[in-house]
């Protein structure tokens, strides 16, 4: 790969503007070679050939390229597969260690020696970036103040479903706080930039999710999000009227994303004290500047996707975003789109900060509805599109396929194959990915389109590592008077206990009784070490409960709390009151011990000398788990009879008033019988005649 880069790099410099076609032809030819090689590798693997695997050397048209495959996996049939994997990973690491100097030389001089090599993890990648800036459309590595990266991660799930996660990152070195002075926008979306500078936003996280992430089936998502819409914002500490800014901001965002964020008001906004710390730089952690709100009822659909896509520099015209066809994306079991804006370090020394805008889209395609029950996935089958080019504005554009469980290709077959592998510690687990670099034209092959195909060999996929932390929630009790919220937190770690922060936001119309709070694990009372409880105010603010609970190893911790259902005013009910009212997900935030650190007796990941103490590297990682939202029924009045009720109640009050008024104002008198009508008429006539009355 490095050789390729060198090729093109030299060409660009030497030929200085030679036509794009030439370069392309060159890449395509290389690609031929690569395909042939991958087939060879596959055959070799199937035959289970031990010892070192050397691929054929092939001659490039322009330069003599020695393609060497240093896949020195000592695949011994007698050993357990895990050991195999450990060994070759181990070996590869040694390879990398042993040849740093030639590697550097490669970049400048040496002829392309292509090998299946490990790409560095993200930290190193950042250093790599200037080297990879070689797309002809982008000017050579000038000190650009903004840059754009895109990537797609595809993870085949054990359930047979497939998880695709898009991430688009725009970095911009600018100062939004200067107000209106920021007027020149290149990659950063202007509509958002203006909002950020107007409301002095320091960090903004917004997500729209349709469906619930099934942790026990699918494992952990890269970016968790609760069903519905979630918005949390850290304001700059210069903001004086935070509530006012929040109110306006939600309305503006509501317009930008065509979502019902304008329904965020004081009744569903909270200021968590510990659960939502800033994810970016900055040490202001005063919760006065934080606002958090969830709209669990929000339905996410095309009208939210379109404005979200418009924020991308390439829109949906080029790059990975062409895959986002809404008729496919929304025909899925889970769909989540998010936007995260935060300040991050510019380089590892962190001398200056840049603003990072990360747009993510996660989607899980169902085996049965999208995949017709066949364990065979391709980009086309998932998105009804294939990839043809990277976004010309992107400095890097990659597709990753998770092949961790498939090191030998025994589970599924991935085609076209790619020589590039990458390893990253994701959510405490070391994962291996096949990488397709879209900025490299060779990736697209002769058909000029990339349509990855994952075909399962085995009908059943192996066991999934159980997620270490998992949460569930439900409402217990019957009737419409009271109820009980049960939150279950599972610690699946075999021997380590760890603390978790539980955040519960419950609307005011479910009146929580904090004295009924019980936390039990393993049948015993588990007293939370920290409780932050803010009781609700009717029609003003929700309940907020934050607790720090220690989860014992291999246990279920149950948090229960009783509540009372309020009868609301008839105008406060939703148009479908008997559907029920949604209560947003609980948020469980935790530093979970890493899986990497979990097995200390295996030499899988680390050499022996490094594995005596639990791995220092990523010994625990931050994780956030959202539970299910709740749907709670409330007692309802009869909506059809406000007039009747007003009339009837007023009648009763009038009966009271009338009878008392009668007794108070009148006196008892002897009833004299009134004369009959005939007699009265006769008396009138008599009076007229002047005759004495009867």
């Amino acid at each position, binding site marked *: 790969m490095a050789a390729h880069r060198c090729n093109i790099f030299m060409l660009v410099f030497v030929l200085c503007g030679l036509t794009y076609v030439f370069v392309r032809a060159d890449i395509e030819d290389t690609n031929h070679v690569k395909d042939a090689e991958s087939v060879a590798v596959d055959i070799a693997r199937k035959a289970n050939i031990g010892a070192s695997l050397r691929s054929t050397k092939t001659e490039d048209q322009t330069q003599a390229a020695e393609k060497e495959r240093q896949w020195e996996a000592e695949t011994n049939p007698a050993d357990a597969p895990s050991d195999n994997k450990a060994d070759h990973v181990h070996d590869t690491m040694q390879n990398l260690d042993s040849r740093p100097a030639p590697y550097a030389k490669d970049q400048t001089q040496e002829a392309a020696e292509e090998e299946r090599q490990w790409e560095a993890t993200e930290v190193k990648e950042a250093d790599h970036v200037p080297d990879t800036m070689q797309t002809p459309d982008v000017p050579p590595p000038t000190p650009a103040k903004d840059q754009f990266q895109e990537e797609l991660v595809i993870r085949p799930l054990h359930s047979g479903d497939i998880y695709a996660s898009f991430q688009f990152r725009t970095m911009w070195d600018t100062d939004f706080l200067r107000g209106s002075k920021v007027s020149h926008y290149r990659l950063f979306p202007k509509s958002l930039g203006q909002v950020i500078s107007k409301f002095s936003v320091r960090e903004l996280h917004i997500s729209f999710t349709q469906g619930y992430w099934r942790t026990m089936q699918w494992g952990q998502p890269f970016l968790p999000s609760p069903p519905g819409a979630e918005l949390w914002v850290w304001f700059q500490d210069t903001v004086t009227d935070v509530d006012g800014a929040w109110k306006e901001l939600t309305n503006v965002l509501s317009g930008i994303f065509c979502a019902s964020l304008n329904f965020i008001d004081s009744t569903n906004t909270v200021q968590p004290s510990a659960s939502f710390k800033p994810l970016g730089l900055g040490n202001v952690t005063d919760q006065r500047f934080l606002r958090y709100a969830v709209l669990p009822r929000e339905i996410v659909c095309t009208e939210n996707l379109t404005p979200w896509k418009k924020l991308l520099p390439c829109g949906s015209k080029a790059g990975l975003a062409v895959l986002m066809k809404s008729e496919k994306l929304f025909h899925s079991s889970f769909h989540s789109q998010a936007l995260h804006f935060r300040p991050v370090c510019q380089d590892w020394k962190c001398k200056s900060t840049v603003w990072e805008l990360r747009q993510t889209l996660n989607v899980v395609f169902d085996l049965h509805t999208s995949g017709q029950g066949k364990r065979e996935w391709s980009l086309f089958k998932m998105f009804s599109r294939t990839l043809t080019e990277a976004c010309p504005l992107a400095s890097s554009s990659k597709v990753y396929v998770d092949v961790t469980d498939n090191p030998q290709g025994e589970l599924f077959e991935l085609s076209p194959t790619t020589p590039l592998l990458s390893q990253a510690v994701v959510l405490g687990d070391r994962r291996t990915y096949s990488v397709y670099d879209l900025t490299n034209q060779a990736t697209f092959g002769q058909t000029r389109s990339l349509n990855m195909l994952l075909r399962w060999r085995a009908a059943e996929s192996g066991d999934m590592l159980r997620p270490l932390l998992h949460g569930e929630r439900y409402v217990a009790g019957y009737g419409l008077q009271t109820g009980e919220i049960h939150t279950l937190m599972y610690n699946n770690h075999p021997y380590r206990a760890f603390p978790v922060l539980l955040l519960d936001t419950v609307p005011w119309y479910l009146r929580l009784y*904090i*004295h009924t709070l019980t936390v039990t694990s393993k049948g015993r009372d588990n007293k939370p070490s920290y409780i932050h*409880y803010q*009781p609700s105010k009717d029609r003003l603010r929700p309940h907020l409960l934050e607790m720090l609970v220690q989860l014992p190893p291999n246990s279920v911790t149950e948090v229960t709390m009783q509540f*009372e259902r309020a009868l609301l005013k008839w105008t406060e009910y939703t148009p479908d009151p008997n559907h029920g009212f949604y209560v947003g997900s609980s948020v469980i935030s935790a530093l979970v011990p890493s899986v990497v650190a979990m097995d200390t007796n295996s030499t899988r990941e680390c050499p022996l000398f490094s594995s005596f103490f639990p791995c220092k590297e990523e010994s625990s990682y931050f994780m956030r788990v959202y539970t299910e939202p709740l749907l709670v029924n409330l*007692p309802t009045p009869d909506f059809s009879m406000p007039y009747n009720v007003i009339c009837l109640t007023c009648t*009763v009050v009038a009966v009271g008033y009338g009878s008392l008024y009668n*007794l*108070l104002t009148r006196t*008892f008198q002897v009833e004299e019988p009134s004369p009959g009508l005939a007699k009265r008429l006769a008396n009138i006539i008599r009076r007229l005649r002047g005759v004495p009355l009867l």
Partner: protein
Amino acid sequence: MAAPLTLLLIVAVTIRAVLFRSSLAELIPERVEVVSPLNAWKRVVEGLALLDLGVSPYAGDVFHETPLIIYFFHFVIDYAEIVFMMADALTAVALYLAVKDYNKTVFRKQKYALEAERYPLDCLELIRTPKEMYYIPLKVAMFYLLNPFTILSCVAKSTCGLNNAVIALFILCTVKGSSLMSAIFLALATYQSIYPLTLFAPALLYLLQRLYIPVNWQRSSFWLFTTQYTFMYLGSLCVMVCLSFFLLSSWDFLSSVYGFILSVPDLTPNIGLFWYFFAEMFEHFRLFFICVFQINVFFYTIPLSIKLKEHPIFLIFMQIAIISIFKSYPTVGDIALYMAFLPAWNHLYRFLRNIFLVSVVLLACSALFPVLWHLWIYAGSANSNFYYAITLLFNVAQILLVSDYFYAYLRREHHLTHGLYLKRKDGSEATLVLK
């Protein structure tokens, strides 16, 4: 007389103690007829829990008791059952003593009137005899202690029982003529739930009557005593409010207790008229109707005081009844208090017009409350209108009961001045009508 009263107290306490130990002790505190958001024991416990967490109990909208109550229970939380049983016993004893004293006064007045030959001759059968008056105080205590409403209220540990005790002590002090204690207990009752404010007028009238000061605007002695009593009342009220402020060092309790009572934000169903009316009210008219309904409670004080200025104890009964019908969060405990007075008016029995109908309706409604609640909330086979209909009927029955007693009282007074067997001009038997 002490022995039957002791026996009664023992029986009442035993019943309550048994119920506290039974499975009903969990069921009853959930009943909306027995507890309201204002006096539910669950909410008292919640307030204490909030206080333990370091959160002001008034920060949320669950706790609506006064600061004195929370501090009281802070110390006696472990003996809550005993406290509530004692409060009931105290109420009964106070009512017993008050009615006994009042009967003495009534009898003495009747004797003077008879001696002065102020009664018409045919009214002799209206004259009350010591024999029939002898058991009245005991009956009053029994009506309070053995009333199922009181028992339910006590088992639910509704703080309504404490308010009743305060009001009973106020009545006792008033009847005994202790103006200072009367003012203090009245202030305490007002502090607990605004509405007893209307009892100021009957108390003043009774104390004036006891001191033989006529209600006469020109008399300086009238003004002197009125000012004195008002100052005692307002002073003790002020002390209590300030004490509450110093206990929690915030004024939050004012809006959380009195604002809550007056503006009726919690529409949890109860036996009163407010909840469904304001759940169904048009937003535009809400404030107007809240004002109308709240004024309604205080409205009758002045006309009733004028009409009944010679009979302040009956006025107290009327006021308590009106409060318990028209207050914003009524419970059965409030009804129990005014029902305890009914034996004191059993000489009015012959003038009651529809006591049978009213008592049947009250009994039927009491039985139907839980049934229709179950149908609405648990079975889902009825809707809110069913329960609402029963509350309406229950309130109509209460209104008829009270107005019937009022009518009977006025009629008896009329007969005592004009004779029992009235004749028309033509000598035939006459009927009395209100004109």
